[in-house]
C-alpha cells in the first residue's frame, strides 16, 4: 500500500442494492486521479465512502497511511481532506451567508486571520467581495459551486475529493476554476480524486482514471491511453464516441 488514498475492494450496500461493488483505486501523492462512468455507477458513493458519508460494508480505505473504519472521521481528517459536492445547493447551508459558511471551517479548526482568508478565497474563485454577505439562494448555480470550492480550499487541505466540480459552470468560469485547481495542486502538492462526466475535463486534469459501471471499476487507464484510443472496454469506447456531441439520427 503506497497510495495517499487507497481503496481496496470496497462495497457499499443500500438495502439489497449494491451501489459500490468491490471497487478499488489507488492514488499516489500529488497525483490527480479521475473517475468517469455512467450515471448511478457509484462515483459519488466512492467519494462519500472515503469521507465517511456512505456506509462501507466490506473492503478497506486508507488515507495518508491510516485505515479509516466506519463513518467516524477525526478533525484532522477534515483538515487534510476536503470534498466539493456534486450538488452545491445541497451542500451549502441555505440560511447562512457566504461569509458565515467560509468562516465556520476556520473557527472549527481554530484558524485565525479569517477576514483575509475569506477575501482571498472568494477572489481565487472569481467572486468579488460583493458576494460575501449574500445567501445561497441569491446566487446563480455556478456562483454557488464556486463558493463550495472556496470553502474546500480555505482550510488548505492536502487531498481534495471533487465531485463534478465544474459541471455547473460555463466554459469561461470552468477554465478559470480548472486553472486554479491545477495551480493550487502544483503549489501545495495536493492530491485530487475527481469525478467528471466530461472526458475533456478529465483528460485535461488527471494523469490516470478509472471507468465505472454498475458499482464496479471496469477499466483503469492513463489519460494518454484514452486520448490515443488505447482502450480495453467497449463501454469506455462508447463514452469517447458520445463525447463528440449530439448527432440527430436521420430517419
Amino acid at each position: 500500500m503506497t497510495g495517499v488514498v487507497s481503496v481496496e475492494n470496497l462495497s457499499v450496500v443500500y438495502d439489497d442494492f449494491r451501489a459500490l461493488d468491490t471497487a478499488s483505486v489507488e492514488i499516489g501523492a500529488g497525483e490527480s486521479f479521475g473517475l468517469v462512468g455512467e450515471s448511478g455507477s457509484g462515483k459519488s458513493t466512492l467519494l462519500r465512502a472515503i469521507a465517511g458519508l456512505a456506509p462501507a460494508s466490506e473492503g478497506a480505505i486508507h488515507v495518508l497511511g491510516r485505515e479509516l473504519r466506519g463513518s467516524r472521521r477525526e478533525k484532522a481528517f477534515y483538515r487534510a481532506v476536503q470534498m466539493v459536492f456534486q450538488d452545491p445547493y445541497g451542500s451549502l447551508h441555505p440560511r447562512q451567508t457566504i461569509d458565515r459558511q467560509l468562516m465556520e471551517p476556520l473557527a472549527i479548526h481554530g484558524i485565525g486571520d479569517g477576514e483575509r482568508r475569506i477575501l482571498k478565497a472568494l477572489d481565487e474563485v472569481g467572486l468579488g467581495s460583493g458576494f460575501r454577505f449574500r445567501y445561497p439562494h441569491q446566487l446563480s448555480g455556478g456562483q454557488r459551486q464556486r463558493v463550495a470550492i472556496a470553502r474546500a480550499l480555505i482550510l488548505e487541505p492536502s487531498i481534495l475529493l471533487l465531485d463534478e466540480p465544474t459541471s455547473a459552470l460555463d466554459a469561461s468560469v470552468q477554465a478559470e476554476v480548472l486553472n486554479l485547481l491545477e495551480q493550487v495542486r502544483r503549489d501545495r502538492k495536493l492530491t485530487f480524486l475527481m469525478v467528471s462526466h466530461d472526458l475533456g475535463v478529465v483528460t485535461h486534469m488527471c494523469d490516470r482514471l478509472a471507468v465505472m459501471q454498475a458499482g464496479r471499476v471496469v477499466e483503469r487507464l492513463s489519460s494518454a491511453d484514452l486520448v490515443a484510443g488505447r482502450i480495453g472496454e467497449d463501454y469506455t469506447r462508447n463514452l469517447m464516441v458520445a463525447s463528440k456531441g449530439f448527432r440527430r439520427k436521420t430517419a
Partner: protein
Amino acid sequence: MSALLTVEDLRVSFPTRTGVVEAVRGVSFTLGRERLGIVGESGSGKSQTGRAIMGLTPPHAQVTAKRLAFDGIDLLSAPPKLRRDLRGKRIAMILQDPKYSLNPVMSIGKQIVETLWRHEKVGRAEARKRALDMLAAVQIRDPARVFDLYPHEVSGGMGQRAMIAMMLVAGPELLIADEPTSALDVTVQLEVLSILDRLVAERGMGLIFVSHDLRLVSSFCDRVLVMYAGRIVEEIAASDLANARHPYTQGLLNCMPVIGADRHPLPVLDRKPEWAL
C-alpha cells in the same frame, strides 16, 4: 412559424443589502416550435430569464417587460390562477438544481404521479404506469426501484432525470430546460437530448435549452442566444457558432478543454467592461 412565446424587453431586478442587482436587463426574443439555445456566463441571467417566463421569480424581485406572451396570453397581466394552471401543464421548466427542486420528503414516483394528477384525471394504476414509463423514457435503468426512492437516495444524474420525467409527464407545449443534462454522463446525456428532440419534432413542442456547453448546444439547437451580464449580446444560427462575432462567444469557444489538446493553463477570457454596458 407562429410565435409560441414572445419576450420583449424583459427585466428582472433584486433589491439586496448592497444595492439593486439587475439580473436581466432588456432581453427580447421570440420562440416558435423549435430548439432555442441560451448560453452565457455564469450569473448572466439565463436562469432568471427562464424563471420569469415561468412565473417563478422570487416575490421581492421586480419583473417588467414590454411584452411577455405565451400563445397570445399576456403573462404579466394574467391572473395568478391562470398562471398556475399554465405552469406544469402547458409550460414546464426543468430547474437547474434537481435535488433542491424535488420535494425531499416525497418519493420520486409519488412526485411524478402528483404532477400528473394536478393536470389530468387518471386512475391510480394508470398514473403509476405513466410515471414508470416516463422514468424508463429518461433512461432510468430500474424504474420500479427508483420510483420508491427519495431524492437523497438517487445519484445526481438520476435526480436530474427524475426532474425531467416530472416535467414531461403532463406533455407541455413549451419546455424551459435549465442545464438539464449537466449532471449526466455523456451517453445518457445524448439519450435525454434525443427525447427532447423527438418532442420538438413530433409534438411541436417549443424548447428553450439553457446550457453552458457550447459544443452540445451547437450540435443540438437551431438557434443560440448568447447572454452576458443580463443582456443578449449575440444571436446566431447554431450551425454557425464557430463563426461567432462577439469576443465573449469566441472566448467561450476557445476555453473548453478538448480531448487530446494539451493546453496548460487553459486560455481564459479577458473580460472587457464594455461588454457589460
